[in-house]
């Protein structure tokens, strides 16, 4: 078929510093097609799309639209060529309504007519099956509604080529399905859609073709009909990887950590945890699922002694002494002095778990430097530990004296998890431990958690990828707006079931 592509990239390269973020990328998309851009974190997906959307300017190469070479210097230029991008982080004015946001920045000689605009918004919504109230204010909207506004904003400007950057990262499974059906409708309407993602099953269920990037380089494009997960992973990673997590049956389960009716409020007095109760057993991985920002962070921080608790109890059964201690209102120091071996891999690695400007040895020392009565530091133990972790977990680093911020995300995480595990914990809490990690590093982390479980540690795992939660955990509790909305057995639960619980609201007499 000698059809001209809607958009074609030829030998596009972009450099940041000396590093190539994209190198000699060739790509084309036809009208009425959904193309997925697949690649691991840092493989240059977003950079590439930003060049089409006019946010970056390519250092080398050419862009063709309908067979003609074009120069896109700004988002305004991109709109001229009917290209619109929906970014991962929304760019909306909170106090404006949907319609006001949509028409914001459109230069128009005609009289300003909000009503007419709202009608057009409605028209677009109906055409593609969006569900949005044009007059609703952004700050009253859920994440998925905000995303809808972003998409309509682009359509309103007449875009024929839509680029969506990780649109499903913030959505529940149900919302994802809805988005996909809308995207399919747009495709039937003759739009070209590019979707950036690293989730394989989405790629397979949605797109016509998949373009794979690896470390900034273009690997190839395959027809989805001819691809499966194994092929795509191999293209993405560059080698065969096994995607199985070996889950053993929980053994010797004892009640290790019992949370009873935990209530917390934030600085403004808004409730962030509402009557949370659950029990974490030794020898078990307990998953916590929920939309980001539903209170996961506060829950873990409350257990670690970093978040003020207003009501409730945090009980710890000490396996050594057989005693039961209440950890509520204790500082991290006091918790440790009680003999509670609680390890915590926080969400914010460099801002909380580690000190970016310190080298690996000094970061190891964070947990142990207090030991002994001498006023001087003892660096030998931490140095040995650093060497051991570098060797055991295959950390890629010039040496143990390298500041951790110079390492890649996966290696930073290995250092943090390695240190927390080295403390021989009885409870290990990990918040989003694989966020931003490539597939190989992610599986290393899953294996480490599994080994801890087999050692009899009570592992609490806060995750965002439901597929992983279902494969890795034994039980999953689901948290929604600060309340526990359900507990499921990970061996039998489905993604849809968890997705429903994530959005269910139990608080304040909402529908149960």
């Amino acid at each position: 078929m000698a059809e001209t592509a809607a958009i074609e990239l030829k030998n596009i390269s972009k450099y940041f510093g000396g590093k190539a973020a994209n190198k000699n990328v060739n790509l084309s998309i036809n009208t009425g097609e959904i193309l997925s851009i697949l690649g691991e974190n840092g493989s240059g997906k977003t950079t590439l799309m930003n060049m089409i959307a006019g946010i970056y300017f390519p250092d080398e190469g050419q862009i063709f639209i309908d067979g003609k070479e074009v120069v896109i210097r700004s988002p305004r230029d991109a709109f001229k060529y009917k290209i619109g991008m929906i970014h991962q982080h929304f760019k909306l004015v909170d106090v404006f309504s949907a319609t006001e946001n949509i028409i914001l920045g459109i230069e128009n000689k005609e009289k300003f007519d909000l009503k007419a605009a709202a009608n057009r918004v409605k028209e677009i919504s109906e055409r593609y099956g969006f569900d949005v109230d044009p007059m609703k204010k952004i700050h009253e909207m859920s994440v998925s509604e905000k995303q809808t506004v972003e998409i309509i904003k682009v359509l309103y400007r007449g875009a024929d080529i839509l680029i969506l950057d990780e649109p499903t990262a913030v959505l529940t499974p149900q919302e994802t399905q809805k988005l996909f059906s809308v995207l399919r409708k747009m495709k039937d309407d003759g739009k070209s859609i590019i979707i950036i993602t690293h989730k394989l099953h989405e790629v397979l269920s949605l797109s016509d073709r998949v373009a794979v990037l690896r470390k900034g380089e273009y690997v190839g494009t395959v027809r989805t009909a001819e691809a499966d997960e194994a092929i795509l992973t191999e293209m993405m990673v560059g080698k065969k990887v096994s995607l199985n997590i070996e889950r053993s049956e929980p053994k010797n389960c004892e009640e290790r950590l019992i949370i009873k009716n935990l209530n917390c409020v934030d600085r403004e007095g808004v409730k962030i945890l509402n009557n949370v109760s659950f029990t974490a057993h030794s020898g078990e991985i307990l998953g916590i699922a929920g939309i980001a920002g539903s209170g996961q962070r506060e829950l873990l921080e409350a257990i670690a002694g970093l978040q003020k608790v207003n009501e409730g109890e945090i009980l710890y059964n000490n396996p050594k002494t057989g005693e039961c201690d209440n950890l509520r209102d204790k500082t991290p120091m006091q918790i440790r002095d009680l003999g509670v071996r609680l390890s915590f891999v926080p969400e914010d690695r460099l801002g909380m778990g580690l000190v970016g400007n310190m080298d690996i040895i000094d970061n190891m020392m964070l947990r142990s430097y207090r030991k002994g009565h001498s006023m001087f530091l003892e660096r030998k133990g931490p140095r040995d530990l650093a060497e051991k972790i570098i060797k055991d977990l295959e950390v890629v680093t010039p040496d143990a004296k390298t500041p951790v911020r110079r390492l890649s995300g996966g290696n930073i995480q290995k250092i943090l998890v390695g240190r927390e595990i080295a403390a021989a914990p009885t409870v290990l809490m990990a918040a989003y431990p694989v966020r931003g990690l490539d597939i190989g590093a992610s599986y290393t982390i899953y294996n480490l958690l599994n080994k801890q479980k087999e050692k009899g540690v009570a592992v609490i795992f806060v995750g965002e990828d439901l597929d992983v939660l279902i494969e890795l955990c034994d039980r999953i509790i689901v948290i929604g707006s600060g309340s526990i909305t359900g507990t499921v057995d990970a061996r039998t639960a489905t993604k849809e079931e968890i997705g429903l619980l994530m959005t269910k609201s139990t608080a304040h007499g909402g529908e149960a």
Partner: protein
Amino acid sequence: MKKLNFHIVKREPMVWYKSVLVRAAAIVAALLVSAVVITLLTGKNPLQIYASMISGAFGSSLRIWSLLQNIAILLCISLAVTPAFKMKFWNCGAEGQVLISGLATTAVMMFLGDSLPYPVLLLVMLAASVLAGVVWAVIPAFFKAMWNTNETLFTLMMNYVAIQFVAFFLKYFVKSGSGVLAPMPEHGLPVLAGQSYLLNIIIVAVLTLIVYIYLKKTKHGYEISVVGESENTAKYIGINVRKVVVRTLVVSGALCGIAGLLLVGGTNHTISTTTVDGRGFTAIMVSWLGKFNPVYMVLTSFLIVFLQRGAGQVSTDFRLPSAISDIVTGIILFFIIGCEFFLQYKILSAKNRKEND
């Protein structure tokens, strides 16, 4: 694209001898530029000017002692602000902390000098000046720790309070009514080997070593680094941040106290509102330029004192307005600070980059 034909790129850390070379090149470049500026502005031979600068700093044994003494005081104050700065507590109050300690020393010398035996007097002077420095530093630290007040403004305001205290003291306790206190060398610190500044220099040398060890090798120093780098990490591992803030400012204030003692008891033997003479602020520059490392700070304080003394000599020798020497000092500092940029970044032209790949 033609518009952008160069890029600024962060570079890998340099090998040490290269970074020494870059710094040396910066100083040479600074001297060359200054030479051109001097010739254009005054018509004098720049070589003579440089000779005069060197003579001003090293020209006689008296000048050398005076140079060392000035380095010692500046370095001592720089050592004092460094622990706080490393913790990202912007202590801009060294000026006031040193001055108030000097005032405490003066008061002890004046009122107790004749009644106490000399060794006891020295101890009381030390205690009084350290205590005064600590109080002046801990007040803003306490407010910062408890209510998160802005330490920069707080410490700056404390400077004015200290100056007014000194002015008050001089007005009411100087019997002649002139407001100028006659020096009391008989109650000052002991003179070693006939060199009145030797003791100061030795004390500061020892302090440099102690502060270096405190910051690099002790648990306290480690806690200071962690709190400075990330307060969240500090809380996460159970450091009591408030305690560390107050404790570090006790150390900072105590060192300012010693600086005040050396300045009044070991050098001037009297006090005025300008005794510290801006060194509380110059010390901030010394500390930053020395990257909070006491050993490097020896070099940076030497550089700054050398430039000041040399420039002063140039003004007298050539009857030039002092602004000329300020210009030279400014040019030299500009190059030295500016070269830090080239140690961390490199500039590539667009052409170059393609060749590299």
